[in-house]
């Protein structure tokens, strides 16, 4: 009995020790293949073990962190769950921007990476249409892309995606100062060129949880469970793996989206062409979290009224910002929604026969 207790305590405290010392990188848990590369971006293909739908899924992740969260562990992988459900999954991974990418704008992300990536995915899957899934700021990019896309987008799913930048509940004075340009961020952004990952890390921390001890206390409480400790460790590595942010994109977000809220007013432009969310005709599913401090639900909800889609639905979940993307607690109605709006393989094969 004592020996068992000693063993548990040893596992618990070594888990906690490893949390501060372990620096190994996160590996993808679902088999994948690189299809296309441009600059630092890669289009990944995750084949379905048994393909059940002809409509592939095209995933666009945020710009502030790495998409490894979508495929963190085999039993809680969003990508793994989607491939097991019979979908071919494509993921555009923007890579880690460096100083030479400081002039990259939202236009570049959409026109040079997202759109060609979708074309490659469509061609590779030999499909007539595609479902686009965006996460956080990647969802904003996905919505902008859907507004200008010539490609046939069947479904658009947006996870915790901000579109209304007029609402910053906890920092209204800072938000107002940026809006009335009392704070001019341009000299700082121009000077830095590319915003260092540590700035992004501490910025996100300030908005969400400046003091961050409860996850470590959870590890202390449950760290004797090796499976929990491993999952915790992988997730913690991801939360610390923020990436640099191109200065030009940040300036565009500040000027066009925060100060002028152009997605809401319909004045946002991509490559000189208007990108009105009213132009979106794809079936729309908005998934928002009621406990999200980074993207409050009020920033995500207007997408429902703004979009021109005839078929639109909202799912509200009690998760935090990353709970859904990590694959933990994926709502069943997401799979039902997607399955009923994707072209199943068997119908096509019957037609061929």
């Amino acid at each position, binding site marked *: 009995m004592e020996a068992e*207790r000693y063993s548990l*305590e040893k596992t618990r405290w070594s888990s906690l020790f490893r949390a501060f010392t372990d620096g190994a990188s996160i590996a993808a848990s679902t088999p994948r293949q690189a299809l296309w*590369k*441009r*600059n630092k971006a890669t289009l990944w293909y995750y084949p379905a073990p048994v393909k059940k739908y002809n409509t592939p899924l095209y995933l666009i992740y945020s710009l502030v962190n790495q998409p490894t969260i979508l495929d963190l562990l085999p039993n809680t992988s969003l990508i793994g769950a989607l491939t097991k459900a019979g979908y071919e999954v494509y993921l555009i991974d923007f890579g880690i921007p*460096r*100083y*030479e*990418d*400081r002039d990259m704008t939202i236009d570049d992300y959409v026109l*040079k990476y997202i759109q*060609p990536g979708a074309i490659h995915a469509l061609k590779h899957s030999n499909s007539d249409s595609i479902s686009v899934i965006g996460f956080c700021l990647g969802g904003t990019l996905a919505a902008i892309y859907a507004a200008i896309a010539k490609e046939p987008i069947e479904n658009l799913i947006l996870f915790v995606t901000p579109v209304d930048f007029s609402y910053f509940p*906890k*920092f*209204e*004075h*800072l938000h107002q*100062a940026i809006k009335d340009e*009392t*704070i*001019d*961020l*341009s*000299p*700082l*952004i*121009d*000077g*830095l060129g590319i915003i260092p990952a540590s700035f992004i890390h501490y910025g996100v921390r*300030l908005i969400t*949880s*400046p*003091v*961050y*001890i*409860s996850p470590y*206390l*959870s590890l*202390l*409480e449950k760290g004797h469970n090796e499976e929990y400790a491993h999952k915790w460790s992988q997730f913690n590595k991801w939360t610390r793996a923020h990436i640099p942010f191109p200065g030009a994109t940040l300036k565009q977000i500040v000027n066009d989206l925060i100060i002028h809220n152009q997605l809401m007013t319909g004045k946002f432009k991509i490559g000189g062409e208007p990108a009105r969310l009213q132009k979106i005709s794809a079936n729309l599913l908005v998934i928002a979290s009621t406990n999200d401090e980074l993207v409050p639900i009020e920033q995500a909800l207007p997408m429902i009224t703004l979009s021109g889609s005839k078929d639109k639905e909202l799912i509200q979940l009690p998760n935090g910002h990353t709970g859904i993307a990590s694959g933990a607690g994926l709502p069943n109605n997401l799979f039902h929604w997607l399955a009923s709006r994707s072209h199943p393989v068997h119908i096509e094969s019957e037609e061929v026969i």
Partner: protein
Amino acid sequence: MHREQLDDLYSQIKLTGSKAETLLNEWIKNRVNKEDIVGLLGRRTQWYGKLIKEIQDAVETASVPLNIPTKKDVASVAKLTIQNEDRLEDIQQRLTQIESTLQRLEAAMGTNPSSTTTAPLQKKASRKPLDRKERAKLVQENLARLSDALLNQSKLGE
């Protein structure tokens, strides 16, 4: 100490710590969201931006007599590679469009696409003139090889 007592202790630490964290976070956020702090942040941002610019200018100036490349020099070389890659990507996209147009035309004219699928090298050996589709395919293959070679070069450079 019994096992249950120890488990309760860890749970209590977690509960108390989480409550303290929530209170502290609220206090920090409320403290930051004040007009005086925002004003200070605005002034500091301006000052810090100017400081960075002046340091960078000084480094740029010093790099000339020291004969060393600056971060901007290295980035401009990397940018050239990215621009070349962009051009290649554009060419590849156009070729793909041409290829699909040709395929559509062929399908509309009722020609047999399988008759043009012979390997380009065999065609060369027989000295038969290549048709448009084969030429486009050859150019695309060569461009893809060139693109790969350039990418490998840039990776080696890194």
